[in-house]
């Protein structure tokens, strides 16, 4: 997953939504936004682990499976913390460790290190479930600090020691959320800007990235929530020395099933299985993969 989409994912983690038949309004914090503080929570610390395999890529708008002999597996361990500053404003930070194993062209290697640190803020103007007429409305913002190693600085032949984008990033977004009985619907839109990066003698800048995230969560029991999520992310063409690079833009569509279990007032578990969709025109110029995450969260 690119750092930009990781930033949007963190913003998304804050974007999402506990239910009697648990309160559906809080299902997001349990199922699809585990780094988000629920209404009576002041702080949290979580650890998320991710494993992902890549099985193909989009060349232009068309998907092709990975060539025989080419493989990639990505692993990530995130330390996540969030705190409520006052009232409805909360901040979150993620510090990732990233590892990559890659095999291509007869070579294979592994590498990793500290990834790009991400910081996100969320302000809830209104809360889902508090009104039948007005949904939960939240403003989201985030920044990514290039604490990882960019691929342009990678030293290994297959660049498995690359752990970040090398660019500062800033993101903004808006989340809408409403509860309908045991169901919760979330729609989140976001835009990410990436700062120019000097690579060799060239100034390069990735295009503006925008994303749309949708989630439908269902509260099964007081403590157990399941959610189906979909995210479409697209990036405009990159620029090199001020010149737009035609057809360099990228996009991808990811579906996920998430399960959240708030097994204690102060603890919750969340697991996700996801895949990028290898469907023509639902992706562009991107590697395609699937994986799983597991997160444990302690709240106060």
């Amino acid at each position, binding site marked *: 997953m690119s750092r930009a989409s990781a930033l949007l994912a963190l913003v998304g983690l804050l974007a999402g939504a*506990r*239910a*009697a*038949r*648990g*309160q559906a*309004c*809080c299902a997001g914090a349990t199922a699809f936004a585990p780094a988000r503080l629920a*209404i*009576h929570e002041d702080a949290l610390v979580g650890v998320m682990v991710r494993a992902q395999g890549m099985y193909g890529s989009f060349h232009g708008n068309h998907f092709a499976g990975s060539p025989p002999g080419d493989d990639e597996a990505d692993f990530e361990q995130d330390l996540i913390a969030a705190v409520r500053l006052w*009232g*409805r404003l909360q901040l979150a930070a993620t510090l990732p460790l990233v590892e990559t194993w890659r095999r291509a062209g007869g070579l294979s290697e592994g590498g990793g290190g500290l990834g790009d640190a991400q910081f996100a803020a969320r302000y809830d*103007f*209104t*809360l889902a*479930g*508090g*009104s*039948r*007429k*007005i949904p939960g*409305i939240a403003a989201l913002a985030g920044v990514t600090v290039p604490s990882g190693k960019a691929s342009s600085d990678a030293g290994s032949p297959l660049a498995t020691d690359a752990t970040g984008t090398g660019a500062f990033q800033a993101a903004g977004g808006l989340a809408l959320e409403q*509860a309908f009985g045991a169901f919760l619907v979330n729609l989140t839109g976001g835009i990410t800007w990436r700062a120019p990066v000097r690579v060799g003698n060239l100034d390069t800048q990735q295009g503006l990235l925008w994303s749309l995230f949708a989630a439908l969560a269902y509260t099964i029991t*007081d*403590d157990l929530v399941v959610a189906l999520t979909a995210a479409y992310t697209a990036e405009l063409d990159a620029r090199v020395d001020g010149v737009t690079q035609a057809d360099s833009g990228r996009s991808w569509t990811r579906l996920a099933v998430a399960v959240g279990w*708030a*097994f*204690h*007032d102060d603890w919750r578990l969340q697991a996700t299985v996801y895949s990028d969709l290898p469907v023509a025109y639902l992706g562009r110029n991107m590697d395609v993969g699937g994986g799983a995450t597991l997160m444990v969260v302690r709240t106060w």
Partner: protein
Amino acid sequence: MVRLLAPLALALLGCGGGLGAGARDARTVARRFPALVEALPRARFTVLEFFSSRCTCQKAHDERLRRLASELAPRGVQVIAVDSEATAGPAKDEAERARRGYAWPIVSDPRGEWADAFGAEFGTFVLVLDPTGAVRYRGGIDSDRAHLSDGATPWLRDALVALVEGREPPLGETRALGCLLER
């Protein structure tokens, strides 16, 4: 349109009105509700509990509230529940009262007037009123949410015991940890 925009504006500004920020004039507020004015003199202290039928925290605290009410009723404590959610109605609330074995009434408040007046945002939010309508305690039933623990601090019980013994509550205000009232 105004009916839609006015609550939106208030919500965006985070203004709940009512007594949420402090008992500016609790007696005046209490006098707005004839049912309450009528009920207050019947007990030394009245627990006004904002009820949410769909709230896990509410369900988890039913037994604790039943025990507390039963224990302190002989010492002059009564409970009145108020359902200020949009789905409130006499038939539904009477069915909930019977199903949960409450020995106290649930007042139906579908327009949320009681919640607005007393600054209630969450289910299980309680106020302890004296016979004049003055608020003596506001906040949660205890420090648990949906999963009950033996180590919970019994905020409401501590307040009521202190009051019936003629002392001030150890904590006059705490946080209610229930679900958002759906208005």
